[in-house]
């Protein structure tokens, strides 16, 4: 019940949308009624358009993000663990971190064409640095007392990396991954809107170009919901993973 009253404003907004469209307060091309959008969504599911484009989008986002987490986390932890790597890479990280990653969209297309490869590369490049920085900050702040006691108990460098540095990097690393997750969706949708032959962004663009705005709204809302759901799911998982800290 409490949840219901909490999300009541969203319901009210949805009702206002429906009313505004039905009473033609705004043009129905610009804002088709919500009920039409839901009907269009069901049609899209039945056609299989939404499913097939959706799976290819999620595959791109998943592959790019997995690569970014793998490489980014390794890089960040090694940077914190071994000084020469830090000296070499820190200036590059500092230089590329503020780069608005959307600028890479045309370049990834030049390198890998219009298909999956360019999107995966873009998401990988765009999402890597937040993970790297999270892992680096986390690993660097591993408690000196822990490091000392591990060393006094005879842990060698590698053992220390695995048993002390990596676990203490975890919370900030997972925070970095959350930023990366949000970025992955942003980059996915924008790259697909600009250049693609399938995927959510492509579907939104082609439906909009055909003037079937209710279906376009349906896809837009689906993408927005998926981004939201992914974030919530991730929070749930990290809460489990970090339960040992309490």
């Amino acid at each position: 019940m409490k949840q219901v009253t909490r999300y009541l404003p969203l319901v009210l907004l949805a009702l206002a949308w429906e009313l505004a469209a039905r009473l033609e307060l705004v043009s129905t091309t610009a804002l088709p009624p919500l009920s039409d959008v839901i009907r269009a969504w069901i049609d899209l599911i039945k056609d299989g358009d939404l499913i097939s484009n959706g799976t290819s989008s999620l595959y791109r986002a998943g592959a790019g993000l997995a690569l970014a987490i793998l490489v980014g986390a390794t890089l960040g932890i090694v940077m914190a663990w071994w000084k020469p790597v830090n000296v070499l890479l820190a200036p590059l990280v500092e230089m590329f971190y503020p780069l608005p990653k959307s600028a890479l969209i045309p370049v990834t297309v030049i390198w890998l064409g219009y298909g999956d490869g360019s999107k995966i590369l873009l998401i990988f490049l765009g999402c890597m640095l937040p993970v790297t920085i999270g892992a680096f900050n986390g690993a660097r702040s591993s408690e000196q007392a822990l490091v000392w006691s591990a060393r006094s108990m005879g842990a060698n460098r590698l053992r220390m990396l695995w048993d002390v540095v990596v676990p203490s990097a975890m919370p900030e690393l997972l925070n970095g991954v959350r930023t990366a997750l949000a970025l992955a969706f942003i980059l996915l949708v924008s790259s697909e809107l600009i250049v693609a032959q399938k995927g959510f962004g492509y579907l939104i663009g082609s439906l909009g170009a055909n003037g079937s705005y209710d279906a376009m709204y349906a896809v837009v809302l689906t993408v927005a919901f998926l981004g939201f759901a992914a974030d919530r799911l991730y929070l749930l998982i990290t809460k489990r993973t970090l339960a040992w800290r309490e």
Partner: protein
Amino acid sequence: MARVAQAMSETPNGLPEKAARVVYRLFWAFMRVFSIVLLLATWEILARSGNFTHFQLPAFSEVVERIWNDAWSGDLWINTALTLYRALTAFLICAVFGVIIGMAMSRNAIANWFFDPIISVGFPMPKIAFLPVVILWLGVYDVSKISIIVIDAIFPVIAATVIAIQGVERELLWSARNMGANSRELLTQIVLPAAAPQIMTGLQVALPLSLIVAVVAEMLMGGYGLGGAMMTASRFANSTGVFAGIVEIAVVGYVLVKAMALIRRRLLIWHQETNDPSTA
């Protein structure tokens, strides 16, 4: 006696020590640019090695030449100014309204009831997906570009403001009230300064986001601007232009982020933690 000893020890060692310090500083300054120079050199060598076509990887020197020409013809300045105008106007709107909405949410139960679910659902959404909807409503000109940036970048500001105000220490509020501060004074003299560091962090998230979205919006809607220029170059298969665009956007992004960190340090000079958290 102590002073004499100090003077004695300083005179013979002073010069080499200073020199050592200069060498040390120079070494680290060199190390800071070393990897960047290495990267650019690798780029140049790879491009000239013939393993890549000119389309895939134009040489860095050509890209620099192209930027130089753009700078002389004035295109560079027009495009940069337009992108900055869009990103910064939207950023200012986000800063002002984000903080106002955040403050309203933490002071007013109805505002909180209304905005809280919208923020918590809207924050993690990829709002860039609404770009075609915004185009449908507002066209392809500056209004719609600025609107989509605001839609994307206002959420971190609101969320940071709400969390920051919640985190203001109660003792501060109590003692201020005890000393007779009215609610306006409480807000301007206690709450806002105490919340400033975290609000600033929210703004530091919103600024790069503004630039990301500005570039995407320009790419999709065309016209002038750094993103639009890149897209035009890409359509004509002019990869030198595309790479020039990346370098230009990278420089703009770097300058903006650094400027923001500088502003943070100036504004929060009284605060213990005056380093920027968002960049490495």
